[in-house]
């Protein structure tokens, strides 16, 4: 029982990383209706920017804020410069554009900051909590993820701008007719996703350490979490992220014989099995199309 609890808490801590990323993934999915494969690399780049600012002697919170602002502007610019011209291209072409962006960001970060592993400070420290089950940074990560979720919920449900963004994503044509500037809403969605990604990156970096490839695994699990929870539901995505972390850890410990070597495989198979029964994710709305 104690082992179960311990593994579940460890899973919760890794799950918090995935949940952060899943949240960013769902955010941009809501805004642009595409999965952004370069999301992880954008977050990694933002984290490097804040690391650079700190290396130049700025205090943590100023670097943090600056990185979030720069990422927001960067996200908007990427949409305006790269994705606006091809927004009518087939979905697979935009997928390749994401792969290109991924490659560019990854390689440039490696070129500018090289591939050595760097440690990244945490403002919350690493003191043990709950008798060593979880440390302060992990607890803070869970807290910040849930806080971001609450803020986003308020933004999308309670503000005119949030409503306009949702309208632009779900039905661009009609949104344009009622006077919403759909193009700018999309750009805004990119900016917000980049900013959330930056926060996620800076929370994750103290755990996985800072290097250009740090986000690859995290992003994949973040996707898995987002899809498991349902791409239409930010809350579901966060829960999905936590679930992926916990399943992965428990499978490694409790499935006999194959568990340790194939824990990733087991986690993914479980997710696919869940999708068999809930094809739109656990909390997603199934899309009804008119014929």
């Amino acid at each position, binding site marked *: 029982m104690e082992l179960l609890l311990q593994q579940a808490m460890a899973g919760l801590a890794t799950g918090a990383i995935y949940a952060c990323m899943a949240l960013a993934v769902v955010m941009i999915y809501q805004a642009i209706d595409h999965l952004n494969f370069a999301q992880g690399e954008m977050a990694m780049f933002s984290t490097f920017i804040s690391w650079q600012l700190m290396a130049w002697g700025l205090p943590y919170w100023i670097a943090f804020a600056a990185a979030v602002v720069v990422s927001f502007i960067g996200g908007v610019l990427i949409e305006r410069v790269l994705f606006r011209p091809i927004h009518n291209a087939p979905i697979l072409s935009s997928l390749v554009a994401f792969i290109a962006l991924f*490659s560019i960001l990854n*390689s440039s970060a*490696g*070129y500018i900051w090289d591939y050595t592993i760097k440690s990244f400070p945490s403002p919350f420290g690493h003191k043990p909590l709950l008798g060593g089950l979880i440390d302060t940074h992990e607890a803070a990560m869970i807290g910040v993820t849930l806080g971001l979720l609450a803020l986003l919920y308020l933004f999308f449900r309670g503000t005119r701008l949030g409503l306009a963004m949702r309208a632009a994503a779900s039905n661009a044509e009609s949104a344009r007719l009622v006077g919403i500037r759909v193009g700018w809403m999309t750009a805004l969605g990119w900016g917000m996703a980049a900013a959330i990604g930056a926060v996620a990156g800076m929370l994750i970096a103290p755990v996985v350490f800072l290097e250009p490839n740090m986000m690859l695994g995290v992003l*994949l699990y973040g996707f898995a979490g987002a899809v498991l929870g349902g791409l239409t539901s930010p809350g579901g995505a966060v829960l999905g992220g936590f679930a992926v972390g916990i399943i992965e850890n428990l499978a490694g410990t409790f499935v006999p014989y194959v568990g340790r070597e194939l824990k990733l495989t087991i986690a*993914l198979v479980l997710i696919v099995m869940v999708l*068999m029964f809930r094809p739109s994710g656990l909390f997603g709305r199934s899309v009804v199309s008119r014929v």
Partner: protein
Amino acid sequence: MPKDGVAVPTEAVAQTGVWARPTVRHLIIAAVIVVALVIPFVAHSFVVFELTQVMIYGLAILGLNLLTGFNGQFSLGHSAFYGIGAYTAAILIHNYEVSYLWTLPAAGGVCFAVGFLFGLPALRLQNLYLALATFALAVAMPQILKFHALEAWTGGVQGLVVDQPEAPSFLPIDDDQWLYYFTLIVILVMFGAAANLVKSRTGRAIMAIRDNPIAAAAMGINLSLYKTLTFGVSAFYTGVAGALGALAVAFVAPDSFNFLLSVSFLVGLVIGGVGSIAGCLFGGLFVLYVPNIANSISTGLAGAIYGVILLIVIFVMPAGATGFVRLAVTRLFPRRRQVSVSGSEGGKP
């Protein structure tokens, strides 16, 4: 509902337009084959090896294209089918000393079965959810290949060494040239078969499912059967490519069949042209050569240059090379096209 006499310009019409002058098309294909036959005698042996790889990638991309381009099902898992094909060939040659000729049908058969079975759960999933399921397959494959209980067959982390096929003694060519011709024969047969499949009744059913599943079902097409079969055939093609890849590289290792290979196939598919058979070979060229070109421009920034090239290509030809060529041909040789579509064609809702 469209009234009678209203022409509906559809994709199918554009294709019959191209097919309407078969002589030009056939001449081009014949010319390409002749050039392909001559190359091994004039090019450096390393180039011959590279072109063999291009054909193999082209075949794998064709497999993906049958599924994604013609049937509309996403897959990020084709690296797994490629890997299964490669390992089937390697295990048969390494452990059971089977002749390499028999490894291709064996690899294809195994992959068809796996693909067909994977197609069953895939029936319930759409778009991104299907992408995740196939992605799971791609991520799981290297782990399964490394799994210790299978080590006796797969060689674990070490992988397996495969004997390279030797040229028949009655032919005055070396092993690399033989492999090239062998691959060329295989892909000519398989590309021809794919072209026929797409033109057949079955092919029209497959494409009808892509264009409008509900209408296709209403016309009496068995969606589950055709979708799973397409999955199987697609895996068959990619599996045979994998077996050829194992023969060409003469070595298989678990980590060469990772998710990034799937991404390469996807890039090749889009660059070549979604839903185009000849475009797959162009995709193969791109996948093999462009990373090398990027690397030769700058080693440190190779990934960034690759990304920029990719972006430029997408900006210049959003519908891939095939779409670009089609556009260029219609611009350069505008011809009178009397399109008459019978009322039964119907319009999209």
